[in-house]
């Protein structure tokens, strides 16, 4: 087990990969009462085909999320109940690039750990339980359809990646989930829930050596077929990005109109560290231009073009990256014009705020150090195999080393006026 020490934060971190391929990362936190554990597969809503060696069959939209829901239920029990009997809070979630199962507990840590590993690694699906779940998830999909924020986000994803699974809701559609069968769930589980796709992270109140021994014992009792050695990858249908839809809108019975501007990035490539560096630089560059310390926020705010609902974010993941800018406003055209203008003139605009760089870097650093108080934040930020050995401590290191030249480079790489897109939610009259 590799031990890394971060003296400045009085923190150690342990990492190893078991013989069967399972990656394990343990983060003991002094003074904490709870233990937080999360088991993640890199398989997510984006992954819509089975591996070539087992036939390469395509998967319906929403299957990853459906599998997550159904994995808890077994022949004679529900994993939720086992966690409950052991005093743990358990949950799960599905994103485009991962599916994660987690619990938080202050008692029976080992027993809960066994429940987590066992229920995720031992599938059980029947036609009856699949049929019932189709009903429940259909209701969930309708619920999201009534939510304007959800419609705005999914509308934008459809603009940025119109021919990719990113355009489909993670829960799928009422039609797509009807095609899910127990057989398909078993095949998918067999392919993508194998140890070499999984990462187990535990943070909080724990003893590393003891915890690792428990995990090893649990895994030694299970049989797994030989590794497939086929990493999950994603390449957009049109890597050039020319398929992007520049504008769409939706009319809904909302009281306040909304607008979102999206900026599609180029394919992030390179090592996990290179991608982290690029991600940190682009995020900081966007903060310099768009946050409330910048040169333009105040004017847009004072003109009522944005208000406190304004937000922006940058996401970089396996095979795709994009920035989103959103606000509630009645001046939608002025908002998209202002964002487009800053994207187009990024180099000159950045020069105006260069004096803010050191200060803003420290502010971001302060917030990142603050995140170290949360076992959930530490574990969730770097959860997949795809991020390699990187952790939040690497993010802190990369941020500290960030230079003004990195910011300029980030703007040159990312701020491309031709990759902008707009999605609006308009109020019914």
């Amino acid at each position: 087990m590799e031990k890394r020490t971060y003296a400045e934060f009085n923190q150690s971190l342990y990492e190893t990969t078991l013989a069967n391929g399972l990656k394990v990362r343990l983060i003991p936190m002094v003074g904490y009462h709870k233990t937080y554990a999360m088991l993640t597969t890199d398989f997510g809503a984006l992954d819509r085909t089975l591996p070539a060696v087992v036939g390469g069959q395509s998967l319906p939209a929403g299957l990853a999320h459906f599998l997550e829901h159904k994995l808890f239920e077994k022949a004679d029990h529900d994993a939720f109940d086992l966690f409950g009997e052991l005093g743990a809070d358990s949950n799960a979630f599905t994103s485009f690039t991962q599916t994660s199962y987690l619990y938080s507990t202050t008692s029976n840590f080992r027993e809960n750990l066994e429940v987590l590993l066992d229920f995720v690694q031992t599938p059980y699906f029947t036609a009856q339980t699949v049929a019932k779940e189709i009903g429940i998830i259909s209701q969930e999909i309708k619920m999201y359809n009534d939510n304007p924020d959800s419609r705005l986000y999914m509308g934008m994803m459809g603009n940025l990646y119109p021919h990719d699974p990113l355009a489909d809701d993670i829960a799928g559609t009422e039609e797509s989930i009807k095609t899910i069968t127990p057989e398909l769930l078993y095949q998918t589980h067999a392919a993508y829930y194998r140890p070499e796709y999984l990462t187990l992270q535990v943070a909080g109140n724990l003893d590393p050596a003891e915890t690792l021994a428990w995990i090893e014992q649990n895994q030694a009792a299970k049989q797994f077929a030989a590794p497939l050695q086929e990493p999950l990858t994603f390449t957009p249908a049109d890597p050039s990005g020319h398929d992007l839809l520049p504008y769409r809108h939706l009319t809904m019975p909302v009281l306040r109109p909304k607008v979102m501007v999206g900026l599609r990035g180029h394919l992030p490539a390179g090592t996990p560290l290179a991608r982290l560096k690029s991600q940190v630089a682009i995020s900081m560059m966007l903060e310099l231009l768009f946050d409330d310390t910048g040169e333009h926020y105040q004017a847009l705010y004072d003109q009522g073009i944005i208000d406190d609902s304004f937000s922006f974010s940058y996401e970089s993941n396996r095979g795709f990256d994009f920035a989103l800018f959103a606000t509630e406003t009645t001046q939608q055209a002025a908002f998209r014009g202002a964002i487009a203008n800053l994207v187009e003139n990024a180099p000159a605009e950045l020069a105006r705020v260069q004096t803010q760089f050191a200060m803003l870097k420290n502010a971001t650093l302060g917030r990142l150090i603050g995140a170290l108080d949360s076992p959930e934040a530490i574990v969730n930020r770097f959860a997949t195999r795809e991020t390699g050995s990187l952790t939040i401590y690497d993010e802190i290191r990369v941020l500290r080393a960030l230079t003004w030249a990195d910011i300029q480079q980030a703007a040159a790489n990312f701020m491309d006026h031709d990759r902008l897109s707009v999605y609006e939610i308009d109020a019914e009259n």
Partner: protein
Amino acid sequence: MVDFELVPGVNVHVLATEQFKQTKLLLNFSRLQTRNNAAARNLLANVLTTSSQLYSTQTALARHLAKLYGASVGAYVTRLGHAHTVRFKATFINEQFAPNLLDAVVQTMGELLFYPLADGMRFDVPTWQLQKTNLVATLQSWDDDKHFYALRQLERLYYQTGSVMEVPSTGTKAQVAALTNEATYAAYQTMLADDQVDIFVIGAVDPDQVAASLQKLPFQARPACLPANLFHNQPAEPLKKLTEHQPLQQAHLNLAYRQPVYFGTADYPTALVMNGLLGGSPYSKLFVNVREKASLAYSISSSLRPFAGHLVIQAGIAAQQAPAAQQLIEAQVQALAAGDFDVATLAKVKAGLLNQYLASQDDENYLLGRALAKTLLQQPTKLDYPAALAAVTPAQVAHLAAQLEPAAVYLLSGDE
């Protein structure tokens, strides 16, 4: 916890701990809510955290906070029983990473509170006007979140017509829109001079240093203004029902029940267990029987209103199934009152509550919230919560459930 009085009516509570890498500061202003004071206090929370004499624009304030290693400052209103509170909160990293932040953040808070952009009669007009416009817009956009909208409609229906509680702690859109600058400023002067003030600091701090920093703030002495009992208790009324139609794919069915147990009292652990069995956990009757078995709701939960004497149930349903869902929900309440639950489920609910309690000790926000509630409610006694939870019996739970009294039913339907 170290407690001391800054001046009469302004008390400081310091929770020194080495567990966390960031420190939190909370300045809480409380006074009794009236039917008219909530809107102005909500607007104040926004105006005062926008700018000040020293930081005369949002940009200046944002840059100042960035210099303090990304310290965050914000304010919001909420209420605890009848006490209306305006809470100014700051978060910043510990001394070991950036020295003297405690003093700098306290000083910043002092600038915002005591030296606003104002002329002694009213706030800077453009600042005040824009914050007012934005606050009205924010309250309006809340109505686009139908789950939250339905809950607020249920609460309005539940509270007695004409009562103070009928007015939300945020004030209404109409109330905010009707505010004048002078009235907002008068509310500011009242808050600063007359409110009960409780200041909390949690983190790796030295109480003496906290005292030294806070003593620089020009707080004046003030008499106590909160009564000993803040809990809301209203007379029983006939069941109130309301159905509203909006163009939606899904419907929201919400129910309120009168419930006699209040926060921190001897029976409170029983109420928490009862709520866990009814709809507050994945093992609850509502979740298992209404959602999982009957598929009559895609989301369902119950929660206590432990300062206001009731319990609410929120269900996301298909509109055409509203009568069936309501019937099955009511049957769950009756079954709980009849003692129809097994010891294994009871044990799971108790284990879950104990876990939440123990885990909350790792969360500074939770610790602050609990300390504030105990201070305002004047509940200094330390309840042995784990022991009290373990001692809750099935008979106590059934007895309490039998006292749940249907008070309001609100349906937001997509069907015309």
